[in-house]
Protein backbone atom coordinates (compact mmCIF):
# COMPACT_ATOMS: atom_id res chain seq x y z
CA UNK A 1 0.00 0.00 0.00
CA UNK A 2 2.78 2.41 0.97
CA UNK A 3 4.64 1.52 -2.23
CA UNK A 4 1.60 2.39 -4.27
CA UNK A 5 1.44 5.82 -2.64
CA UNK A 6 5.12 6.35 -3.28
CA UNK A 7 4.70 5.35 -6.91
CA UNK A 8 1.81 7.81 -7.29
CA UNK A 9 3.80 10.60 -5.66
CA UNK A 10 6.85 10.02 -7.85
CA UNK A 11 4.63 9.87 -10.94
CA UNK A 12 2.96 13.16 -10.08
CA UNK A 13 6.33 14.82 -9.47
CA UNK A 14 7.68 13.41 -12.72
CA UNK A 15 4.69 14.69 -14.68
CA UNK A 16 5.08 18.09 -13.00
CA UNK A 17 8.79 18.15 -13.86
CA UNK A 18 8.16 17.18 -17.48
CA UNK A 19 5.41 19.77 -17.68
CA UNK A 20 7.76 22.43 -16.34
CA UNK A 21 10.48 21.39 -18.83
CA UNK A 22 7.92 21.60 -21.63
CA UNK A 23 6.72 25.06 -20.55
CA UNK A 24 10.27 26.34 -20.16
CA UNK A 25 11.68 24.48 -23.16
CA UNK A 26 12.72 27.62 -25.04
CA UNK A 27 14.49 29.16 -22.04
CA UNK A 28 16.07 25.83 -21.04
CA UNK A 29 17.48 25.23 -24.51
CA UNK A 30 19.09 28.67 -24.50
CA UNK A 31 20.32 28.47 -20.90
CA UNK A 32 23.67 26.71 -21.47
CA UNK A 33 24.56 29.37 -24.06
CA UNK A 34 24.62 32.16 -21.50
CA UNK A 35 28.03 31.61 -19.95
CA UNK A 36 30.06 31.35 -23.15
CA UNK A 37 28.18 34.15 -24.90
CA UNK A 38 28.43 36.45 -21.88
CA UNK A 39 32.13 35.74 -21.43
CA UNK A 40 32.98 36.22 -25.11
CA UNK A 41 31.04 39.46 -25.46
CA UNK A 42 32.05 41.17 -22.24
CA UNK A 43 35.68 40.09 -22.52
CA UNK A 44 35.84 41.44 -26.07
CA UNK A 45 34.47 44.80 -24.93
CA UNK A 46 36.70 44.90 -21.86
CA UNK A 47 39.82 44.13 -23.90
CA UNK A 48 39.19 46.00 -27.16
CA UNK A 49 36.66 48.72 -26.30
CA UNK A 50 37.74 49.69 -22.79
CA UNK A 51 41.31 48.64 -23.75
CA UNK A 52 42.06 46.97 -20.44
CA UNK A 53 44.83 44.41 -19.87
CA UNK A 54 44.05 40.77 -20.69
CA UNK A 55 44.53 39.57 -17.07
CA UNK A 56 42.17 42.18 -15.75
CA UNK A 57 39.52 41.28 -18.33
CA UNK A 58 39.71 37.57 -17.48
CA UNK A 59 38.91 38.51 -13.88
CA UNK A 60 36.27 41.03 -14.95
CA UNK A 61 34.17 38.43 -16.80
CA UNK A 62 34.66 35.62 -14.28
CA UNK A 63 31.41 34.01 -13.09
CA UNK A 64 30.68 31.10 -10.78
CA UNK A 65 30.05 28.86 -13.80
CA UNK A 66 33.45 27.93 -15.28
CA UNK A 67 34.34 28.09 -18.98
CA UNK A 68 36.24 25.22 -20.59
CA UNK A 69 37.99 26.89 -23.54
CA UNK A 70 39.03 30.46 -24.15
CA UNK A 71 40.72 31.76 -27.31
CA UNK A 72 41.58 35.40 -27.86
CA UNK A 73 42.90 36.03 -31.37
CA UNK A 74 44.50 39.43 -30.85
CA UNK A 75 45.14 40.12 -34.58
CA UNK A 76 41.48 39.61 -35.46
CA UNK A 77 40.25 40.94 -32.09
CA UNK A 78 38.01 37.89 -31.91
CA UNK A 79 37.22 35.82 -28.83
CA UNK A 80 35.82 32.31 -28.75
CA UNK A 81 34.65 30.81 -25.48
CA UNK A 82 33.23 27.37 -24.67
CA UNK A 83 31.31 26.35 -21.58
CA UNK A 84 28.47 23.99 -20.65
CA UNK A 85 28.89 22.31 -24.03
CA UNK A 86 28.23 25.46 -26.08
CA UNK A 87 30.61 27.80 -27.87
CA UNK A 88 30.27 31.47 -28.80
CA UNK A 89 32.43 34.14 -30.43
CA UNK A 90 32.49 37.89 -30.24
CA UNK A 91 34.44 40.20 -32.51
CA UNK A 92 35.55 43.82 -32.43
CA UNK A 93 34.06 45.64 -35.41
CA UNK A 94 35.36 49.19 -35.24
CA UNK A 95 36.15 52.31 -33.25
CA UNK A 96 32.50 53.32 -32.87
CA UNK A 97 30.79 49.93 -33.14
CA UNK A 98 32.83 48.11 -30.49
CA UNK A 99 32.17 44.37 -30.09
CA UNK A 100 29.31 42.12 -31.06
CA UNK A 101 28.45 38.44 -30.65
CA UNK A 102 28.63 36.52 -33.90
Amino acid sequence: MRRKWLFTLVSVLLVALLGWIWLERVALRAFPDIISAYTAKEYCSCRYVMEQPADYCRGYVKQSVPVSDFFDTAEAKRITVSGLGRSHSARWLGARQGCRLE
Partner: protein
Amino acid sequence: MSKGWFLIPLLILNLSVQAEDWPGEQWPSGPTPSGPAIEALEQYAFPPRDDASREGIRTDALLVIQDGRLVYERYAGQTTAETPHLTWSISKSLMATVFGVAYGEKLFGLQDPVAQYYPALGKHPDMTLADLFHWASGLDWQEDYEYAPLNSSVVAMLYTRGRRDMAGFTAQHESFSPPGQVFRYSSGDSNLLAAALKNIVGPQRYPDYPWTALFEPLGIRHAIWETDASGTFVGSSYAYLTARDLARVGLLMQRDGRWGERQLIPRDWVAFNREPFARFQVGQDEAVPGGHWWLNRAADPAIRPWPDAPADTFVALGHWGQALYIIPSARLVIVRYGDDRDGSYRHNELLKRSMAAFAGAVQP
Protein backbone atom coordinates in the same frame (compact mmCIF):
# COMPACT_ATOMS: atom_id res chain seq x y z
CA MET B 1 35.15 108.86 -27.87
CA SER B 2 31.77 107.87 -29.29
CA LYS B 3 33.40 104.74 -30.69
CA GLY B 4 34.48 103.79 -27.18
CA TRP B 5 30.93 104.02 -25.84
CA PHE B 6 29.80 101.73 -28.60
CA LEU B 7 32.13 99.00 -27.33
CA ILE B 8 30.80 98.93 -23.77
CA PRO B 9 27.72 96.71 -24.41
CA LEU B 10 29.98 94.30 -26.28
CA LEU B 11 32.36 94.21 -23.37
CA ILE B 12 29.53 93.51 -20.93
CA LEU B 13 28.20 90.76 -23.19
CA ASN B 14 31.65 89.28 -23.35
CA LEU B 15 31.97 89.37 -19.56
CA SER B 16 28.67 87.57 -19.11
CA VAL B 17 29.77 84.84 -21.50
CA GLN B 18 33.09 84.58 -19.67
CA ALA B 19 31.25 84.20 -16.39
CA GLU B 20 29.91 80.80 -17.37
CA ASP B 21 32.41 77.98 -17.71
CA TRP B 22 32.16 75.29 -20.37
CA PRO B 23 34.60 72.60 -21.40
CA GLY B 24 36.58 73.10 -24.59
CA GLU B 25 38.96 70.32 -25.56
CA GLN B 26 39.56 69.93 -21.81
CA TRP B 27 37.54 70.79 -18.73
CA PRO B 28 38.49 74.04 -17.05
CA SER B 29 39.50 73.19 -13.52
CA GLY B 30 38.59 74.77 -10.23
CA PRO B 31 40.12 74.42 -6.76
CA THR B 32 39.57 71.02 -5.15
CA PRO B 33 38.21 71.48 -1.64
CA SER B 34 40.17 69.91 1.20
CA GLY B 35 39.27 69.00 4.74
CA PRO B 36 37.27 66.36 6.59
CA ALA B 37 34.27 66.44 4.24
CA ILE B 38 36.30 65.45 1.19
CA GLU B 39 38.13 62.82 3.26
CA ALA B 40 34.79 61.37 4.33
CA LEU B 41 33.73 61.17 0.69
CA GLU B 42 36.94 59.40 -0.29
CA GLN B 43 36.70 56.98 2.61
CA TYR B 44 33.28 55.95 1.35
CA ALA B 45 34.05 55.82 -2.36
CA PHE B 46 37.56 54.38 -2.24
CA PRO B 47 37.91 51.78 0.52
CA PRO B 48 40.77 49.26 0.12
CA ARG B 49 39.99 47.33 -3.05
CA ASP B 50 39.81 43.54 -3.03
CA ASP B 51 40.13 42.24 -6.59
CA ALA B 52 40.05 38.59 -5.48
CA SER B 53 36.75 38.56 -3.62
CA ARG B 54 35.31 41.59 -5.50
CA GLU B 55 33.41 42.45 -2.33
CA GLY B 56 32.36 45.88 -1.19
CA ILE B 57 32.42 49.27 -2.84
CA ARG B 58 34.70 49.30 -5.87
CA THR B 59 34.72 52.77 -7.40
CA ASP B 60 36.54 52.96 -10.75
CA ALA B 61 36.13 56.71 -11.23
CA LEU B 62 34.74 59.65 -9.31
CA LEU B 63 34.58 63.03 -10.98
CA VAL B 64 32.86 66.20 -9.85
CA ILE B 65 31.98 69.22 -11.96
CA GLN B 66 30.84 72.35 -10.20
CA ASP B 67 29.72 75.42 -12.14
CA GLY B 68 31.14 73.88 -15.28
CA ARG B 69 34.60 73.36 -13.77
CA LEU B 70 36.35 70.13 -12.86
CA VAL B 71 36.85 70.30 -9.10
CA TYR B 72 37.56 66.66 -8.24
CA GLU B 73 38.78 63.62 -10.13
CA ARG B 74 40.11 60.27 -8.96
CA TYR B 75 40.46 56.87 -10.58
CA ALA B 76 41.06 53.40 -9.18
CA GLY B 77 41.68 49.88 -10.43
CA GLN B 78 42.48 49.85 -14.14
CA THR B 79 40.31 52.83 -15.08
CA THR B 80 41.99 56.10 -16.07
CA ALA B 81 40.86 59.44 -17.47
CA GLU B 82 41.27 57.91 -20.95
CA THR B 83 39.18 54.78 -20.33
CA PRO B 84 35.86 54.70 -22.18
CA HIS B 85 34.05 52.89 -19.37
CA LEU B 86 30.99 50.74 -19.93
CA THR B 87 27.98 52.74 -18.73
CA TRP B 88 25.47 49.86 -18.78
CA SER B 89 21.99 51.34 -18.26
CA ILE B 90 23.22 54.94 -18.25
CA SER B 91 22.95 54.20 -21.99
CA LYS B 92 19.17 54.43 -21.63
CA SER B 93 19.33 58.04 -20.47
CA LEU B 94 21.91 58.80 -23.16
CA MET B 95 19.49 57.36 -25.73
CA ALA B 96 16.79 59.65 -24.33
CA THR B 97 19.15 62.59 -24.75
CA VAL B 98 19.89 61.60 -28.35
CA PHE B 99 16.11 61.51 -28.84
CA GLY B 100 16.03 65.05 -27.44
CA VAL B 101 18.00 66.32 -30.42
CA ALA B 102 15.57 64.59 -32.81
CA TYR B 103 12.73 66.15 -30.78
CA GLY B 104 14.31 69.55 -31.41
CA GLU B 105 14.29 68.71 -35.12
CA LYS B 106 10.54 68.09 -34.75
CA LEU B 107 10.88 64.57 -36.11
CA PHE B 108 8.38 62.97 -33.71
CA GLY B 109 5.86 63.67 -30.97
CA LEU B 110 5.75 61.94 -27.60
CA GLN B 111 2.19 60.74 -28.14
CA ASP B 112 2.98 59.17 -31.51
CA PRO B 113 2.30 55.41 -31.61
CA VAL B 114 5.58 53.48 -31.57
CA ALA B 115 4.23 51.23 -34.34
CA GLN B 116 4.33 54.26 -36.65
CA TYR B 117 8.15 54.04 -36.52
CA TYR B 118 8.58 50.39 -35.59
CA PRO B 119 6.02 48.24 -37.43
CA ALA B 120 6.90 45.06 -35.48
CA LEU B 121 4.75 46.56 -32.70
CA GLY B 122 1.68 46.49 -34.93
CA LYS B 123 -0.09 44.32 -32.35
CA HIS B 124 0.21 47.22 -29.88
CA PRO B 125 -1.27 50.20 -31.75
CA ASP B 126 -1.90 52.17 -28.53
CA MET B 127 1.69 52.06 -27.26
CA THR B 128 3.19 55.55 -27.50
CA LEU B 129 6.80 56.72 -27.42
CA ALA B 130 6.05 58.40 -24.06
CA ASP B 131 5.00 55.01 -22.65
CA LEU B 132 8.40 53.57 -23.59
CA PHE B 133 10.25 56.53 -22.05
CA HIS B 134 8.29 55.81 -18.83
CA TRP B 135 9.13 52.08 -18.99
CA ALA B 136 5.40 51.47 -19.16
CA SER B 137 5.02 49.46 -22.37
CA GLY B 138 2.90 46.89 -20.55
CA LEU B 139 5.04 44.11 -22.05
CA ASP B 140 5.64 41.15 -19.75
CA TRP B 141 9.39 41.65 -19.34
CA GLN B 142 11.68 40.15 -16.62
CA GLU B 143 14.66 42.37 -15.88
CA ASP B 144 16.64 40.18 -13.42
CA TYR B 145 20.30 39.81 -14.28
CA GLU B 146 22.30 37.25 -12.35
CA TYR B 147 19.76 35.92 -9.90
CA ALA B 148 17.15 34.43 -12.21
CA PRO B 149 19.04 33.79 -15.43
CA LEU B 150 16.63 31.16 -16.76
CA ASN B 151 13.70 33.53 -17.07
CA SER B 152 15.60 36.79 -17.39
CA SER B 153 14.42 38.60 -20.48
CA VAL B 154 17.46 40.84 -20.39
CA VAL B 155 19.99 37.99 -20.31
CA ALA B 156 18.19 36.29 -23.19
CA MET B 157 18.09 39.58 -25.08
CA LEU B 158 21.77 40.44 -24.67
CA TYR B 159 23.35 37.00 -24.94
CA THR B 160 21.10 34.28 -26.35
CA ARG B 161 17.70 34.29 -28.04
CA GLY B 162 17.37 38.03 -28.52
CA ARG B 163 20.88 39.11 -29.33
CA ARG B 164 20.58 39.40 -33.12
CA ASP B 165 17.51 41.62 -33.01
CA MET B 166 16.89 42.90 -29.51
CA ALA B 167 13.90 45.09 -30.35
CA GLY B 168 12.30 42.26 -32.33
CA PHE B 169 12.81 39.93 -29.37
CA THR B 170 11.17 42.49 -27.05
CA ALA B 171 8.23 43.02 -29.39
CA GLN B 172 7.41 39.30 -29.19
CA HIS B 173 6.65 39.52 -25.46
CA GLU B 174 3.00 39.30 -24.43
CA SER B 175 1.33 42.17 -22.61
CA PHE B 176 0.54 42.06 -18.91
CA SER B 177 -1.14 45.49 -18.91
CA PRO B 178 -2.39 48.05 -21.42
CA PRO B 179 0.44 50.47 -22.33
CA GLY B 180 0.97 53.57 -20.21
CA GLN B 181 -0.69 52.17 -17.07
CA VAL B 182 2.01 50.39 -15.07
CA PHE B 183 5.71 51.06 -14.56
CA ARG B 184 7.93 48.01 -15.05
CA TYR B 185 11.63 48.65 -15.62
CA SER B 186 12.58 47.07 -18.93
CA SER B 187 15.72 47.12 -21.04
CA GLY B 188 13.47 45.89 -23.81
CA ASP B 189 11.51 49.16 -23.77
CA SER B 190 14.77 51.08 -24.24
CA ASN B 191 15.73 48.96 -27.23
CA LEU B 192 12.30 49.47 -28.79
CA LEU B 193 13.11 53.19 -28.61
CA ALA B 194 16.52 52.56 -30.19
CA ALA B 195 14.80 50.70 -33.04
CA ALA B 196 12.12 53.38 -33.49
CA LEU B 197 14.86 56.02 -33.80
CA LYS B 198 15.99 54.33 -37.01
CA ASN B 199 12.85 55.44 -38.82
CA ILE B 200 12.52 58.68 -36.89
CA VAL B 201 15.85 60.05 -38.15
CA GLY B 202 15.99 57.82 -41.23
CA PRO B 203 18.21 54.80 -41.91
CA GLN B 204 20.82 56.97 -43.66
CA ARG B 205 21.50 59.18 -40.64
CA TYR B 206 20.90 56.54 -37.98
CA PRO B 207 24.31 54.81 -37.79
CA ASP B 208 26.06 58.14 -37.04
CA TYR B 209 23.22 59.93 -35.31
CA PRO B 210 24.38 59.65 -31.66
CA TRP B 211 27.70 61.19 -32.75
CA THR B 212 26.40 63.90 -35.08
CA ALA B 213 23.44 64.82 -32.86
CA LEU B 214 24.97 64.62 -29.39
CA PHE B 215 28.59 63.55 -28.96
CA GLU B 216 30.28 65.82 -31.50
CA PRO B 217 28.43 69.00 -30.49
CA LEU B 218 29.53 68.35 -26.89
CA GLY B 219 33.16 67.80 -27.91
CA ILE B 220 33.04 64.08 -27.05
CA ARG B 221 35.73 62.48 -29.21
CA HIS B 222 35.82 58.91 -27.98
CA ALA B 223 32.39 57.34 -27.59
CA ILE B 224 31.46 53.78 -28.50
CA TRP B 225 27.92 52.53 -28.90
CA GLU B 226 27.57 48.86 -29.78
CA THR B 227 24.79 47.59 -32.03
CA ASP B 228 23.04 44.26 -32.46
CA ALA B 229 23.29 42.32 -35.71
CA SER B 230 20.29 44.20 -37.13
CA GLY B 231 22.25 47.45 -36.73
CA THR B 232 20.11 48.78 -33.87
CA PHE B 233 21.99 50.50 -31.06
CA VAL B 234 21.90 48.55 -27.83
CA GLY B 235 20.18 51.55 -26.27
CA SER B 236 19.66 49.67 -23.04
CA SER B 237 23.24 48.79 -22.18
CA TYR B 238 26.24 49.28 -24.43
CA ALA B 239 27.43 52.90 -24.60
CA TYR B 240 31.02 53.59 -23.45
CA LEU B 241 32.38 57.02 -22.47
CA THR B 242 35.21 58.38 -20.40
CA ALA B 243 34.14 59.87 -17.07
CA ARG B 244 35.10 63.32 -18.35
CA ASP B 245 32.94 62.88 -21.44
CA LEU B 246 29.93 61.55 -19.54
CA ALA B 247 30.18 64.67 -17.39
CA ARG B 248 29.68 66.75 -20.56
CA VAL B 249 26.26 65.15 -20.99
CA GLY B 250 25.65 65.89 -17.32
CA LEU B 251 26.45 69.59 -17.78
CA LEU B 252 24.18 69.74 -20.83
CA MET B 253 21.34 68.37 -18.70
CA GLN B 254 22.18 70.53 -15.69
CA ARG B 255 21.84 73.58 -17.94
CA ASP B 256 18.48 72.51 -19.40
CA GLY B 257 19.77 71.28 -22.74
CA ARG B 258 21.90 74.31 -23.54
CA TRP B 259 25.52 73.96 -24.64
CA GLY B 260 27.21 77.34 -24.72
CA GLU B 261 25.10 79.58 -26.92
CA ARG B 262 23.24 76.70 -28.50
CA GLN B 263 20.01 75.14 -27.23
CA LEU B 264 21.01 71.64 -28.37
CA ILE B 265 17.96 69.99 -26.76
CA PRO B 266 14.65 71.83 -26.22
CA ARG B 267 13.99 72.85 -22.64
CA ASP B 268 10.62 71.12 -22.71
CA TRP B 269 12.39 67.86 -23.59
CA VAL B 270 14.53 68.09 -20.46
CA ALA B 271 11.37 68.99 -18.53
CA PHE B 272 9.82 65.75 -19.81
CA ASN B 273 12.90 63.78 -18.73
CA ARG B 274 12.56 65.29 -15.25
CA GLU B 275 8.79 64.91 -14.86
CA PRO B 276 7.91 61.94 -12.62
CA PHE B 277 5.79 59.25 -14.24
CA ALA B 278 2.42 59.85 -12.56
CA ARG B 279 1.51 56.18 -12.22
CA PHE B 280 4.71 55.15 -10.45
CA GLN B 281 3.94 53.56 -7.10
CA VAL B 282 6.14 53.36 -4.05
CA GLY B 283 8.24 50.20 -3.93
CA GLN B 284 8.24 49.57 -7.68
CA ASP B 285 11.88 50.64 -7.93
CA GLU B 286 14.58 52.30 -5.87
CA ALA B 287 14.34 55.57 -7.79
CA VAL B 288 11.44 57.38 -9.45
CA PRO B 289 11.20 57.07 -13.23
CA GLY B 290 10.95 60.23 -15.29
CA GLY B 291 11.36 60.25 -19.06
CA HIS B 292 14.15 57.64 -19.17
CA TRP B 293 16.02 59.39 -16.35
CA TRP B 294 15.70 58.71 -12.60
CA LEU B 295 14.38 61.30 -10.18
CA ASN B 296 14.54 62.08 -6.50
CA ARG B 297 10.92 63.19 -6.38
CA ALA B 298 7.59 61.65 -7.34
CA ALA B 299 4.03 62.79 -7.89
CA ASP B 300 3.56 61.61 -4.29
CA PRO B 301 5.65 64.04 -2.17
CA ALA B 302 6.27 61.34 0.42
CA ILE B 303 8.55 59.50 -2.03
CA ARG B 304 12.16 60.67 -1.89
CA PRO B 305 14.62 57.92 -2.92
CA TRP B 306 17.74 59.76 -1.70
CA PRO B 307 16.68 61.79 1.35
CA ASP B 308 20.10 63.43 1.80
CA ALA B 309 20.18 64.83 -1.75
CA PRO B 310 18.18 67.83 -2.97
CA ALA B 311 14.77 67.06 -4.44
CA ASP B 312 15.84 68.33 -7.88
CA THR B 313 18.56 65.66 -8.17
CA PHE B 314 18.16 63.56 -11.29
CA VAL B 315 20.37 60.73 -12.40
CA ALA B 316 21.25 58.10 -14.96
CA LEU B 317 22.01 54.71 -13.41
CA GLY B 318 23.68 51.53 -14.61
CA HIS B 319 24.47 47.99 -13.48
CA TRP B 320 27.42 47.46 -11.11
CA GLY B 321 27.22 50.97 -9.70
CA GLN B 322 27.47 53.27 -12.70
CA ALA B 323 25.92 56.68 -12.04
CA LEU B 324 25.66 60.16 -13.46
CA TYR B 325 24.20 62.47 -10.81
CA ILE B 326 22.97 65.96 -11.69
CA ILE B 327 22.04 68.43 -8.97
CA PRO B 328 21.02 71.71 -10.65
CA SER B 329 20.35 73.54 -7.37
CA ALA B 330 23.96 72.88 -6.29
CA ARG B 331 25.30 73.30 -9.87
CA LEU B 332 26.90 69.89 -9.50
CA VAL B 333 27.49 67.05 -11.93
CA ILE B 334 28.99 63.87 -10.49
CA VAL B 335 30.16 60.86 -12.48
CA ARG B 336 30.71 57.66 -10.57
CA TYR B 337 31.90 54.55 -12.37
CA GLY B 338 32.23 51.32 -10.45
CA ASP B 339 32.61 47.60 -10.50
CA ASP B 340 30.37 46.81 -7.55
CA ARG B 341 29.42 43.18 -7.55
CA ASP B 342 27.55 42.88 -4.25
CA GLY B 343 25.15 45.82 -4.18
CA SER B 344 26.58 47.37 -1.02
CA TYR B 345 27.05 50.78 -2.67
CA ARG B 346 24.43 53.40 -1.70
CA HIS B 347 23.64 56.39 -3.92
CA ASN B 348 22.28 58.32 -0.96
CA GLU B 349 25.51 57.96 0.96
CA LEU B 350 27.64 59.18 -1.93
CA LEU B 351 25.27 62.07 -2.59
CA LYS B 352 25.20 63.04 1.08
CA ARG B 353 28.99 63.11 1.33
CA SER B 354 29.32 64.91 -2.02
CA MET B 355 26.88 67.59 -0.91
CA ALA B 356 28.89 68.04 2.30
CA ALA B 357 32.17 68.27 0.39
CA PHE B 358 31.10 70.46 -2.52
CA ALA B 359 27.89 72.25 -1.65
CA GLY B 360 28.73 73.06 1.94
CA ALA B 361 25.76 71.07 3.23
CA VAL B 362 26.13 70.28 6.91
CA GLN B 363 26.46 66.59 7.64
CA PRO B 364 24.03 65.58 10.38
